[in-house]
């Protein structure tokens, strides 16, 4: 490999009102390497890449690609220079087909004007019945690019590309009908269609099952071997060590260091990411569980699109008990959380809280019945950002008598209540609960406010969905401690999380949810982490038991478990490893 890096970003600075997202960042990538960009949420990784991709203008600093300075005004410029980006939140338009999504922006003219050959290169004349003089005429081309569209040939080309890399996709299907893994493949196809030299992936595995992630890693290896440079953004240590050649760590907007992946371990990377020794375990006292606070049986529910997301869940939680629910995002967790909190009506089954049947009751009945809810997306569902901290703190309790002031609402009392919560839950950045809007708080502080609001009510049942996602490490510790404290007070908790460490630390019982069903039940003490991980992807593991849904998942289970030498549903020994290990 040459020492002159393919991509070099020097001294990049980008500021937004109130925050410096990138502060004098240096970052370089060699040709054909997979380079990880590691950092916590809010460290500045996405911002840096958006600068690289032309979505943002850097306030200072320079970027060089292949030795040439890179001056981008828009994503179109980035595409022209061979930079492709696969975003974490897919940039796809559901109503349009795969082909239309891939082709958007390229202004492919109809057949006779095409200049791409079937192998995807942009030179070379395809067969055409138009005389060259017209085909190459600038005005005619400009008109053709705007007022025709060459979907047929493009579709064929996309299909060919997909085959080359082992994807399976129907280019005519509307993207809205594809599942998450398929959509990500479309994202990658978009980049491949444009002949990228540098491919950026932003947290690509956030929405994938471990098996799908393995497939992705293989694909990335293939791409890197063919000369494409890859930037892999992540906040997951395990991934960074698994797939990358080198890793650059960002912390709070600054570059902390760049290391060869082979020469460091996860603990060291964590230290670079966070800046101090990270305590990965908490003290958990023994608590005697009491009466059941939640009894849900036969729970079925649909997702927003009307497809069944919960297929018959039985769940019970006792006072003083934390029941953890593990699973890859998209297996019904959201619907389960919302059903238990009374926000989503189940299509079948019953929910009883403290012995009272609340099935089908409006949300208010759940709230008044002692159920607290910390939703997954704190901005969209957890708070009103424009309103004050006080408004948000009071949200669930304002109907209580103590806030009565005759026929009016006692705002002074609400203010005191809010201040109590801010105090007790260490919510920083609030000099006046009435004046500071909730949107001004940082992620961690906002989450502390929300959790504070939910816990101060002394709920019988707490439903917490990803309570520590996207929160700085200091706040994470606080939040987990708070949940444990509430457990000691007698609250029963349903903890839904993607973070296995968190689940193992906090739960008394641990369940695994997969495709809307509980497929495994165990306790942190007795659990085998690999088995749990496998159940999360639908693998079965015991020879001879009923096949999981679809052969693809059985294969996936095989590959995820190469070391364990597992057997698939037919009792045969698993096939050889699918690679992807480094």
């Amino acid at each position, binding site marked *: 490999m040459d020492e002159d890096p393919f991509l070099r970003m020097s001294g990049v600075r980008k500021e*937004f009102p109130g925050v410096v997202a990138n502060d004098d960042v240096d970052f370089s990538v060699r040709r054909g390497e997979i380079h990880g960009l590691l950092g916590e949420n809010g460290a500045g990784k996405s911002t840096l890449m958006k600068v690289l991709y032309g979505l943002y203008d850097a306030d200072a600093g320079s970027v060089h690609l292949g030795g040439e300075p890179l001056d981008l005004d828009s994503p179109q410029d980035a595409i022209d220079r061979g930079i492709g980006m696969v*975003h974490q939140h897919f*940039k796809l338009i559901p109503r*349009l087909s795969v082909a239309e999504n891939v*082709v*958007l922006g*390229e202004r492919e003219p109809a057949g006779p004007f095409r200049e791409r050959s079937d192998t995807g290169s942009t030179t070379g004349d395809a067969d055409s019945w138009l005389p060259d003089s017209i085909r190459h005429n600038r005005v005619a081309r400009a008109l053709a690019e705007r007022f025709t569209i060459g979907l047929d040939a493009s579709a064929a080309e996309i299909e060919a590309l997909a085959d080359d890399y082992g994807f399976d996709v129907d280019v005519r299907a509307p993207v809205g009908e594809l599942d998450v893994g398929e959509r990500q493949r479309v994202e990658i196809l978009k980049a491949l269609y444009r002949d990228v030299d540098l491919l950026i992936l932003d947290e690509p595995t956030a929405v994938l099952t471990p098996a799908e992630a393995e497939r992705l890693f293989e694909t990335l290896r293939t791409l890197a071997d063919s000369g494409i440079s890859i930037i892999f953004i992540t906040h997951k240590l395990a991934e960074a060590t698994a797939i990358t050649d080198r890793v650059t760590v960002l912390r709070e907007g600054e570059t902390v260091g760049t290391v060869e992946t082979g020469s460091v371990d996860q603990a060291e990377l964590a230290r670079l990411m966070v800046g101090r020794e990270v305590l990965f375990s908490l003290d958990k006292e023994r608590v005697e569980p009491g009466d059941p606070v939640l009894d849900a049986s036969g729970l079925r529910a649909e997702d927003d699109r009307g497809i069944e997301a919960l297929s018959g869940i039985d769940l019970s939680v006792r006072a003083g008990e934390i029941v953890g629910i593990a699973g890859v995002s998209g297996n019904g967790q959201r619907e389960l959380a919302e059903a238990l909190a009374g926000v989503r009506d189940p299509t079948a089954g019953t929910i009883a809280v403290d012995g009272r049947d609340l099935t089908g009751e409006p949300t208010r009945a759940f709230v008044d019945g002692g159920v607290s809810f910390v939703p997954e997306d704190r901005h969209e569902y957890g708070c009103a950002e424009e309103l004050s901290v006080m408004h948000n703190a009071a949200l669930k309790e304002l109907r209580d008598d103590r806030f009565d002031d005759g026929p009016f609402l006692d705002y002074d009392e609400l203010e005191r209540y809010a201040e109590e919560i801010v105090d007790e839950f260490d919510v920083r950045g609030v000099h006046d609960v009435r004046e500071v809007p909730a949107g001004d708080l940082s992620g961690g502080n906002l989450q502390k406010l929300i959790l504070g609001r939910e816990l101060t009510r002394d709920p019988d049942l707490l439903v917490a969905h990803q309570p520590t996602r996207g929160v700085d490490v200091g706040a994470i510790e606080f939040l987990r401690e708070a949940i444990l404290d509430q457990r000691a007070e007698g609250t029963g908790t349903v903890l839904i999380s993607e973070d296995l460490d968190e689940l193992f630390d906090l739960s008394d019982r641990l369940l695994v949810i997969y495709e809307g069903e509980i497929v495994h039940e165990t306790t942190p003490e007795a659990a085998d982490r690999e088995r749990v991980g496998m159940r999360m992807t639908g693998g079965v593991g015991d020879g001879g038991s009923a096949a999981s849904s679809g052969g693809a998942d059985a294969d996936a289970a095989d590959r995820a478990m190469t070391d364990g030498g597992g057997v698939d549903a037919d009792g045969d020994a698993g096939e050889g490893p699918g690679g992807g290990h480094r």
Partner: protein
Amino acid sequence: MVGFAAGLLDAAVRASTVFIFAALGEIISERGGVLNLGVEGMMLVGALGGFATTVVTGNYWLGFAAGMAMGAALALIHAFLCITLKSSQVISGVMLTLLGTGLTTYFGTDWVNESIDGFPQMTLPLVGQYLVEIPVVGEALFRSTAPDFIALALVPTVWWFLFRTNLGLEVISVGEDPETADTMGVDVFKMRYLCVLLGGAFAGAAGAHLSLAFSQLWATGMVAGRGWIAVALVIFAQWRPERALVGAYLFGLLDALQLRSQGIDLALDAGAPLSGVVNPVLELLMHPTIMSTYPYLATIVVLVVTVVRFDDSRLGAPSALLEPYSRETD
């Protein structure tokens, strides 16, 4: 009876052209993500501008072009406010209708008594003479003014533009998800400006058609709410040009029926059972003023039915409609 039907059809077709122009323009604008509630105002300035230009120059084609330009000029304000300044599309649109109404009333008093020779009735070249011979529908469909034919031709043109060209794909993408479109290299601002300006030009054409072809005069407020119907029509048509044509005909028919309802005798014989109840009701329903509410009520019904049946009020609507786009939102 046949004569009545033919006359009715003729009136319906003539009345529908205004809606075709305005609705097509609004479809383009909304597909691009910008709601234009200023259609009524743009139609008015198009009507007055076109009329005044024709009076002064004696050339109705110039007048028609002037009308389109004036509609587009007003739309430019809308575009600037909504796209560049990222203001509320609702406020801007209502404001422009108010402005258009005010300006045309203010400046229009001088032109009320003028008269012009507007677009003459014509048939299509070559085949026209045979097409008008078709019984009942021939005259109605194939003898019209030039703008009527242009409007009809615009329906497949706009359809093809939206669904069979790269620019159309970009328009749709910008109205569905401007951030994605931006990432793909589409110039969101330019496309949205284009859509709004086209919408304004079409609205201006609709107004000019009114004063130069349909009525051939200028009267204060002559658009009489048709701009609002056009906005409703777009929803009725679920943002598809071919359905807008159907809707335009329907609403044109209602328009025509209104004027002719006196000639229709639907009453039951006085001796028939329930005639005492049914006849007054029929009379009420056929009353011209009451009939003029039908387009609005029909649109509400369509809106509700669409929503209830598909469980999603934005089924047809471009997903990013009404949302201003800013690249650096974080």
